């Protein structure tokens, strides 16, 4: 019995002394540590990575085509060689699939200038090049637009003054950025006609302020990734030869 009382007293004492032992935040130190090449490579980690890296490099280093020059999206005012190449590739790679699925003819392409994520360097074009230009998983969607929406698209291009890649369309603007002339495949835009325009799924949902896509006559996802279209095209073509042309110009 004596022991029991002693035990209870001791336990109570324990709790009170625990409570008394209060730790308070007294000091904080913060710093940034750069991860540099002076740090050792942990071999246990490297051996986990290696098989993944080897498999990847096998694909990434596969030579698909050849670039005679270096092409950058900053080279050109309202149209660039690399942008024209991309729009042309999307047209080329999409038109057959679209026609066979819907029986409609593809009229043109619009992409966004910001969507060109890298340059194409002079020399071999590899799978890695395609991943650098297009690291995202976006896919091609064909959108049916009435002629008046094509007009809105032209207004958009003139207003934003950027070299958004286009194909099938022609646009000239004056020094005040007013539209001087616009056409689809060499013909004036027919406001009542339905045109079929390939783009990427990011832009259809209003990306880069392309709101003219919202009021459309139908969307046809091709389930074909932009990057895969680039890869498939590079495989077919021995040497690329993109140029700056007159599809979107200021006069």
């Amino acid at each position, binding site marked *: 019995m004596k*022991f029991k009382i*002693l*035990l209870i007293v*001791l*336990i109570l*004492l*324990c709790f009170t*002394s*625990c409570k*008394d*032992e*209060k*730790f*308070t*935040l*007294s*000091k*904080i*130190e*913060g*710093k*940034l*540590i*750069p*991860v*540099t*090449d002076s*740090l*050792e*490579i*942990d*071999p*246990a*980690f*490297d051996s*986990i*990575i290696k098989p*993944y*890296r080897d*498999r*990847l490099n096998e*694909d*990434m280093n596969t030579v698909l085509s050849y670039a005679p020059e270096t092409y950058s999206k900053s080279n050109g005012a309202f149209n660039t060689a690399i942008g024209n190449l991309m729009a042309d590739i999307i047209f080329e790679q999409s038109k057959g699939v679209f026609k066979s699925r819907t029986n409609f003819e593809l009229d043109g392409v619009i992409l966004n200038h910001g969507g060109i994520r890298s340059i194409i360097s002079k020399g071999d074009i590899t799978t*890695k090049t395609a*991943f650098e230009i297009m*690291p*995202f*998983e976006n896919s091609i969607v064909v959108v049916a637009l009435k002629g008046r929406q094509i007009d809105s698209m032209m207004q958009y291009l003139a207003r934003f003054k950027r070299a958004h890649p286009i194909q099938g369309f022609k646009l000239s603007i004056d020094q005040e950025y007013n539209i001087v002339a616009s056409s689809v495949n060499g013909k004036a835009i027919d406001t009542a006609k339905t045109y079929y325009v390939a783009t990427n*799924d*990011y832009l259809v*949902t209003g990306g880069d302020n392309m709101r003219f896509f919202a009021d459309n006559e139908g969307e046809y996802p091709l389930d074909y990734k932009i990057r895969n279209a680039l890869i498939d095209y590079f495989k077919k073509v021995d040497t690329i030869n993109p140029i700056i042309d007159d599809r979107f110009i200021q006069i």
Partner: protein
Amino acid sequence: MKRRHFIQQSVAATTLVTLGGFGLQSFNAAPRVKQITILHTNDVHSHIDAFGPEDGRNANQGGVARRASLIESIRKETPNTLLLDAGDIFQGTPYFNYYGGELEFRLMSKLKYDAATIGNHDFDNGVDGLYAQLPHAKFDFISANYDFKNTVLDTHVKPYKVFKKDGLKIGIFGLGIALDGLVDRKMSKETEYLDPIEMSQEMTRRLKTEEQCDLIICLSHLGYHYKNLPDRISDLNLAKATKDIDLIIGGHTHTFLPKPTVAQNKEGKNVLVNQVGCYGINLGRIDFYFDNDKNKTANGTSIIV
């Protein structure tokens, strides 16, 4: 009878030893310092390998295998360490396109990450893509303002987690960025975005009052600050609008802070806000020192950055 007597005696002996132990602490008041170390990354974006020597901006920097040896050396020196990531683990190199995040999670598990929050790019393969990789992650995902109850991630993401280190309780909650305009609905599906300030108030109340945490950390992917949209919710605005948060570890804006920012919360108390750029080229380190010496702690908390 004899056996009973023996047990009673040994109980008494044990308790006396305990008394001795406590006596020493409570009466002699030996000053003791507890150190909690927080290590953190953000926006690593699938950068498994270091940048190559020819890279224009980050040549020879980063790389998981180097980060591993750095973290290991810090853990040896300070055992009470927590390793955290503020989101956007996914997307940025073909490792993600090829393996869907499997390698990122496997390596983070081996690095012994304790928790991560979810960035907008972690939805790049949809909630299903993130869910599919969860078996490779031996750490917890925390987010207090993404409600996943109508998605496959239901029950797999917790609003907060409490860690116990050296007798101290560290409460960590996660916050994600508004999904509209950043993440396609096809990817985020029924994920619901809740107000970060309201959820922070709820989290700090729970962690401070109910869980009695000694330290509260917010793991955020809201972004540091938006110069052109100064009123948009960001880590700096969150710090100002809340209380009881000791540290906000941020991401999303790839902000490279040479040292943590000391902000003031709505009670005028200091909150540390930190973010270490992106691509695993830096590791953030914050050390918290706790003291039982009343004379010392009466002077408040000193911040050395």
